[in-house]
């Protein structure tokens, strides 16, 4: 049977019957999605890849516990969000020196510039850093909702299934998150402007 035509549940069944290699199909199918969610939380390629590895290993380890009440995709998203949150909490507990070294890791989000103007690149980089700070400072649930919505392009219904809320609650959560983000971005932009004037 063709890999693409096999549905997730069939693959899970054959993995549980001992065919570990079939798990590769699930990894190939979902690794980019998981990576983007992780990137939305940590904004760092290497860390996002480490988290992606962790997510798939946890998924493989607990595959026998997957009951199929929700889709595999929803279940995987839940694991991904949990691993990301654990990682963030762990980093918050890191001693200051470790956090500084993490900050200076060379592979922080590199955004391909679509302009050659150095001043515009600088402005964009400043805004990019500020956007990351603004996202990171959102309350946990708002942050999850905004990452799943913006980085994974999920609908409110899908987000609701992942974080066990009603669609209405997710809509309200997203509105609050966007308002918060807007306020933080505006204050950040003013700070960037003031810095440039000095």
């Amino acid at each position, binding site marked *: 049977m063709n890999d693409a035509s096999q549905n997730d549940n069939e693959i899970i069944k054959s993995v549980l019957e001992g065919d570990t290699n079939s798990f*590769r199909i699930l990894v190939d199918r979902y690794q980019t999605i998981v990576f983007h969610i992780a990137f939305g939380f940590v904004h760092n390629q290497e860390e996002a*890849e480490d988290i992606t590895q962790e997510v798939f290993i946890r998924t493989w380890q607990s595959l026998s516990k997957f009951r199929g009440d929700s889709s595999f995709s929803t279940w995987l998203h839940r694991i991904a969000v949990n691993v990301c949150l654990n990682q963030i909490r762990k980093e918050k507990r890191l001693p200051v020196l470790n956090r500084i070294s993490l900050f200076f890791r060379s592979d922080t989000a590199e955004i391909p510039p679509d302009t050659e103007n150095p001043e515009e690149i600088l402005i964009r980089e400043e*805004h990019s850093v500020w956007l990351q700070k603004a996202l990171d400072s959102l309350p946990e649930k708002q942050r999850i909702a905004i990452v799943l919505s913006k980085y994974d392009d999920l609908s409110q219904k899908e987000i609701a299934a992942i974080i066990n809320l009603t669609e209405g609650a997710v809509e309200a959560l997203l509105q609050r998150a966007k308002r918060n983000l807007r306020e933080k*971005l505006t204050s950040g932009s003013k700070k960037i402007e003031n810095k440039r004037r000095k």
Partner: protein
Amino acid sequence: MFLMKKRKVKMDCEDCKNRIDEYIEGKLGNEDKLSFESHLHICHECHEILNLQVLADRIIKEENKVEPDFYLAGKIMSRIENLEKEHDPWLIRILRPALATIAVAGAIMGGVLIGSISAGTADTGAPIELTLMNDAEIEFINVLAAE
């Protein structure tokens, strides 16, 4: 005569901020879109907020273009294979090197045994005294015969 004027909905800053996403996503109706845009013409602050929001969305879209390492899936699978090996029952894990040693020792002893049996039964067709002689002795005998 009264002229029926079309009701013009004026948008204030609060409305404008609340509807920025709908505007960006093209979800505003024509009338709302017009009043949103006319507010932007007179309100520099809301215009700035819209620009920031558009920039933020663009940054997120560009972050989404970052792709994971080509070998990531391979790394994941090799970690899983290692974990699978660790999951073998402990008795097999402990006994595996011992069993391997016993198998090698058995093979060597078997080889020696077969060798010795075949050596014992080998029929060279020569008397036992000659089979025990070395080449030097044979040469010595030949020399004596020539004399």
